[in-house]
Structures are given as C-alpha cells and as structure tokens.
C-alpha cells in the first residue's frame, strides 16, 4: 500500500450563523488507503455525514467548506468545479445511502438504473452494458440476475435493493466508496449479508471504503481503521483493534461503555403473581382483492401465548414483519384481536367493547419508538402529561402536581412543563413519553423499540431510567426490540417471534445460551461484532484527552 486514495487535511465546514456551533466539521484530517475500510463513528450531530457529503460534493447549500483540502486522484476536491466533481462522482467515487427505498427510482427497472451509470460515463454498446450489468448483479450475490435485471424496485426486498445500490456504486469500479449508514434500515440477517459483501469488496477491488455508522458492533465487524468524531472534531483515530479494545479518549470510552453488554447479573427468580396472561391470541389482516389481484390474508399473530409476572421484564424479539408490533397493538387495543385472551390482573380485555375497556386502558401504557412523532407538537408538555389522568376523571391541578414529580423522576426540570416538544432532544422527548405513560400509574409498561432511535449514550441513560422506574414502582415491562444486545441486557425472559409465531421462549440465559429454534440461532449468528467483547473501561489506564 502506497499512497492514500483519499486524504483530507484540516477540513473545516462552516455552519450557518444561527446554528448552535460555528463549524459542522472542524480541522478534520483523515486518510483512506486502498483496500481499507475506515469507519467514521459518532453520535447524531457529530459531523460524520457532513464529512462524507463534503467529499462527494453533495453538501447542502447552507454549508460551505471554509478551509483545508481534500486530495483525491490528484485533485483538490474543494477547488474542483461542480461539473468536474460530478464527473468524478460515479466514475471514481460512489456513495451508498442509508435508505435503499428512496435511493432507487421506482419508475425504471433496476437493470436500466445500473446501465445508466455506463451510459453516463462510458461509451459502451448496449449489449456490453447489459452484460456488465448482469455481471455486477452476480457480484453482489443477487439470485437469478436476468430476472432481477428486469425487476422494478418495489418487487425487491430491502436487502436486495441495498445490493442494487451497491452494484450501482461499483459499476465503474470507483477508487473510493462512501457508505452512509448503509445497514441501519435493514434487518439483522440482511445486515449481516451486506456487511459480508463489503468485506468481500475490500478483497476483490482496490477501492478504499469510508463507512459512516453509529453502531460499534458494525465497526467491530468490518473496520480496519476507526475515526471517532464528536461535535465536528476527530477525538480519536487508530486501528480498529486498538480503538475498540483500548480506547484512549474519554469520549470514545464513554461511547464504548454505553454499548449494552451481552451479559448481566443473573437476577433472583421472579415469584410474584401473574400480571399479564396472553393466551391463543390471533390477529389476521385481510387485504381485500381488487379487479386484478386476489385477496390476501396475513396472519400477523398466530396463537400467541405468554405470561408475565409482576416486576418482570419480558423481551419480545424479532425482525420486521415478525408480528411483534401487531401483538403490541392488540395488547393496548389499538387493534382488535380476533380471538384469544389478554388478561390483565385477571380481567380479560381482549374482546371487550371500547366503552367497557375505558377504565382498564390505564393498566397498560406504551412508549413508542419515534421520539419525534409521539408528542403532539401543538400542545405543551404539561398539557400532554395531564391528559391521561384528566381522561380518567382526575382533578387537573392534582395531575399537574404529579407531572412535576414525574419530571423529577425522569430527570427533567419540572419547569419545562410549559414548553413545547420542539425544544427537546430525542432522549429528552423519550423521557417525557415515559413520564406521560407513568402519569396514569400503569401496571404494565410497553416499550416498543423505545430506545432504537437514540444515540448509544442516550440509549444507556434511558435504559437505566427504565430499569430504575421498574424497580421503584413495581412495574412489569414488555420490551419490544430488534437489538439483541439491548434485549440481553435489560430483559429477564424473552420470546422470539417469526412471522406471527412465537418460536422460542425462556429466560435470557436459556434463549441466548442454548437456542433451540433454528431461527433464533440464525438471529444470534447474524449479530455483527460477535467476536468483540466490550472492554471493561474501568480496567484501562487513565484516559488521555
């Protein structure tokens, strides 16, 4: 390995004046060698995507690089004209985006879209273009390339679409590949395959890969070198082995320390009474047939059975489409189950009418995934918090009193009650949502992917808070997640769902230690960063800032 493919020197990108800091990226220097995967890690707002976009010349209008240089292919990219830069894009450098849904144009077949790359940048004949395209599809391991060639994006799964995007990026054998969170939107098993593909590309092509991610497991899986960013600055960079196992900078340590451990103290067995008992719960969705398509029936929940005891945390694990969301909706009765029993403290609410259900609503509360969509932007926090108790006939002033108390419990200043949601960060909003759910003193709290959208350090805090509240209030928690690490850390018992079926159940130790169902084994096997044990930060020598 000789010269770096990409070399960024002292790059600074200015933010507009009104922003909370002066620079999106400050004095950043990094290099990408051929056949090397450099992972840029950082939490949201750390400037990692801005670095990628600057290199690609795709910065939004409001941002402009103010100093430094980006050397690539003998040019300084910052001095290049828009036209010359766009000529380099696709031909010499390519980018893979997070969302494979929106990166492909639904109007054209994927074959056409890949061929367009050749049309734009080469003068190959039609037959040659097609042959090259098919070869690319083979290279990214898509089944039956000629069929895929003629398919439209909506006919492919998320993982297949991401492969198409990668194939497009590879079309002209670029020297630099930039991937911005390419696996974040994918299921565990798909993510594993895509990461594997990246590792393979590193071997087969000479390209350097810049891989932007927030997930340390992914870093552990594929990175050669790691660059850690905070507030637009690089705080640490080094080989993956070094940064992951012997982090130097306090911020890196903080991040790595926040990664959930796969192990935990084995709790005392739970002997309390059953709070929730679900038996033979069924829910099917009927998609009405149209003139040209047959009716379809989807079994979202098939004979689901489980019980949860007071003070227990039950994890519900599964990939997208496994029916876990439907199950949750049936439990809180946003959907009506078809048959079965959901008994809360001995009272069956599964098939109750909406009217009879009202007093039982408050026993089960939920915290949703999206911290931005789950608070009404037009009402103050206080107004939203007292909503629940007021609906159940409580005095408003008294409810406000409890709201203030709960704000303290979730570690927010009670004064914020008269603010609007737009003034809070994602983690703070999630705390507010937890407080809102607790306002009606529920017996069961459902956390539906409640920490999935949060940065790892914020995630750690929210998890800690949830645990604390559970112990303090004797809550029973249903923890829905796709993240096995989180599940292993916070849950007592687990059920694993696949296509509406519960395929495995047991304590965390049983399920993760000795999985009996092939699907569970597949999930466990698909986790990235399996070989990496999160180091115990406490045993490392003191940090160097």
């Amino acid at each position: 390995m000789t010269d770096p493919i990409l070399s960024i020197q002292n790059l600074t990108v200015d933010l507009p004046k009104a922003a909370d800091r002066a620079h999106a990226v400050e004095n950043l220097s990094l290099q990408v060698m051929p056949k090397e995967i450099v992972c840029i890690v950082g939490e949201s707002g750390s400037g990692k995507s801005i670095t990628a976009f600057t290199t690609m010349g795709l910065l939004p209008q409001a941002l402009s690089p103010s100093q430094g240089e980006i050397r690539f292919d003998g040019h300084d990219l910052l001095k290049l004209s828009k036209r010359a830069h766009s000529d380099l894009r696709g031909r010499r450098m390519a980018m893979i985006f997070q969302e494979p849904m929106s990166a492909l144009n639904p109007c054209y077949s994927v074959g056409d879209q890949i061929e367009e790359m050749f049309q734009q940048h080469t003068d190959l004949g039609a037959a040659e273009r097609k042959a090259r395209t098919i070869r690319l599809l083979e290279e990214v391991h898509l089944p039956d390339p000629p069929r895929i060639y003629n398919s439209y994006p909506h006919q492919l799964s998320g993982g297949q679409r991401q492969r198409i995007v990668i194939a497009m990026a590879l079309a002209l054998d670029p020297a630099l590949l930039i991937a911005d969170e390419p696996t974040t939107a994918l299921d565990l098993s798909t993510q594993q395959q895509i990461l594997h593909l990246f590792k393979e590309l590193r071997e087969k092509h000479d390209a350097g890969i810049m891989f932007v991610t927030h997930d340390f497991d992914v870093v552990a899986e594929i990175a050669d070198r790691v660059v850690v960013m905070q507030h637009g600055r690089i705080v640490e960079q080094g080989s993956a082995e070094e940064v992951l196992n012997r982090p130097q900078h306090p911020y890196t340590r903080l991040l790595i320390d926040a990664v959930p451990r796969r192990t935990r103290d084995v709790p005392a067995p739970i002997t309390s009474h059953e709070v929730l008992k679900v038996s033979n719960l069924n829910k099917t969705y009927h998609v009405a047939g149209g003139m040209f398509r047959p009716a379809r029936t989807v079994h979202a929940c098939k004979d689901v059975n489980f019980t949860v005891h007071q003070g227990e945390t039950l994890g519900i694990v599964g990939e997208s489409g496994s029916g876990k969301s439907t199950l949750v909706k049936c439990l809180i009765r946003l959907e009506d189950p078809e048959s079965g029993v959901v008994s809360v403290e001995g009272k069956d609410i599964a098939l109750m009418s909406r009217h009879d259900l009202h007093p039982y609503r408050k026993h089960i509360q939920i915290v949703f995934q999206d911290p931005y969509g789950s608070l009404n932007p037009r009402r103050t926090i206080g107004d939203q918090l007292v909503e629940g108790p007021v609906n159940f006939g409580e005095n408003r002033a008294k409810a406000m009193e409890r709201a203030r108390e709960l704000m303290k419990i979730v570690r927010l200043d009670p004064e914020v009650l008269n603010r609007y949601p737009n003034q809070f960060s994602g983690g703070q909003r999630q705390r507010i949502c937890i407080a809102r759910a607790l306002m009606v003193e529920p017996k069961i709290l459902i956390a539906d992917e409640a920490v999935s959208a949060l940065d790892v350090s914020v995630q750690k805090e929210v998890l800690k808070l949830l645990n604390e509240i559970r112990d303090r209030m004797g809550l029973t928690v249903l923890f829905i997640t796709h993240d096995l690490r989180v599940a292993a850390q916070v849950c007592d018992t687990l059920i694993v769902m696949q296509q509406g079926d519960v395929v495995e159940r047991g304590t965390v130790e049983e399920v993760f230690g000795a999985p009996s169902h092939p699907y569970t084994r597949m999930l466990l096997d698909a986790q990235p960063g399996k070989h990496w044990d999160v180091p115990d930060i406490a045993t490392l020598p003191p940090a160097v800032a």
Partner: protein
Amino acid sequence: MTDTTTPTDQPLQAPRNKPLTPGQAMRRRALRHKGLMFGAVVMLIVLCVAIFAPLLTQYDPYQQSLLARMKPPVFLGGTSEHWLGTDGLGRDFWARLAYGARISLMIGILAAVISGIIGSTLGILAGYFGGKVDMVVTFLINVRLAMPVVLVALAVVALFGGSLVVVVSVLGLLLWDRFAVVLRSATMQVREQEYVAAAEVLGASLPRILFKDILPNVMNHLIVIFTLEMAHAIILEAALSFLGLGVQPPTPSWGLMISEGKDMLLFEPWLITIPGVALFFLVLAINMLGDGLRDVTAPEGRN
C-alpha cells in the same frame, strides 16, 4: 472510574438561547414574509374601509342626484366634491365602493365559514375513521365536484331570487369540496402519528382526540384554504351580480357596480375600472395572505 456523565444525566438546564415556542417562531417568520405582509396590510385597509364606511364619506350610497350624474373622478378632471365621481344615477361612487366592501367581505367570510364548517367536518371524519365513512364522504365530494358551481348557483338563484342570504348560502354549500379533500388527507397523515395512538391509549375520548390532537395539527391547512375559498366566493359573487343574479340593486356590491357600468364601458370606462381594480386588489391580497400563511405555517413540521 467512569465518571464521565452525559449532559442528559443532569436535570435539564435552561438552554442559553431559549428556543422559540412554535407561536413565536411563526410570528417571526410572518414578519419577514413580504407577500404575507402585503396581503395582510391590504386586507386590513379593506376591512377598515368596510367597517368605518359611514365615517369615510358623508354621502349615502343609495342617495340619487339627477343633477350630479356621471361626474368623473378627481384624476379625470372631476371636482373634490365627489372624488371618485358619481354613477349614472348620481350616486357617489366612493360611498358605493366603501359600502360595497362590506358586502364583498361579508359574502367572502360567511361563505368561507359555512363551507369551512361543512368541508372540514366531513374531511376530518373521513380521514380519521377511514373505511365506510371515508367511502361516503369521498362519494359526496365526487358528487359535489361533478356540479359546475356557477351553473348550479345560477339555477338556484333563478329559482329563489337573488338576495344576500341566498347568495351566501348557495356559495357556502357549494365551496366546501377543497376543505374536505385537503383536510381528509391531512388528517390521514396526522392520524398515523404516534401521539394520536398515545392519546387513545391514555383513554382520550373521540372528541378530545379530534379537537386536541387532530384539529390543531391540520389547522394550518384549514386557514390557508379558508383564505383561498374566501377569495373564490368574492369573485363568484361579483360574477353572479354581474349576471344580475347575485345581490339585487340598489345594494352597493362591487360586482353589481361593474355590471351597471358595462353599458357605459366605451364612454366612461372608470365606472368599471374602479370597482374592478378594487376587486382585483382584494382578491390578490387574500390569495397572497393565504400563500404567505402556508409558507409560514408549513416549514415548522414536527420540530
């Protein structure tokens, strides 16, 4: 050893630059929006003229004077006695214009209020419930869209006779389609938000969800369409009056003034241009107000 705590661990401190409440941010954007400001100022002027008409002119808009017929306005060589001149029956043109603003605004606002109530009720219910309710509402919308507004209005007015009440109710009953269509889809989007689900789980009753969670979040659409439909109603009234089927003479209405001036188009064109220009500016101002409101309320989004 790990004494590094994240900022979120501490109770939330009052941030340095206290972020604006949604209302404050909106006011700030509104003041910077030129179109919105233009529309608002013109609307305000017309509103003042309409309200204070008796103070702005000493003439009665109905008072005829055969001695002072067809006096040209000041800028065409008339006298300051009638600064906008007089019409064919010797009525002061400025007085008729000022009192006419009352009619135009009243028709615009009342028709938009009536259609707004009908349309947004239908739209929100359809969007929220979906399914059969949606089917019925969509059918009603289609039926309404299949009716040519002017033709139906003409027919109804011809049957019942033209009067202010008839014109307002006909327009009110005909212009609700856009409210329904837009609020239906806006409600469908808001309905999927998790805060609506959370409210439902927290035992909120249906009216509470509709008024506290849905309505405030579709309000910006409602306001924008309200202004558009108001302009629409004013124009339609003028058109009906021009055809002689709107408000009846001698009521001072801008459309009627244009209609009455049409015989003299070639000799005294200002009889038409003055109410025409007034109508033009009023409608332009309302439309710019609506456009501006959309710009100011929309970018707020979820944050």
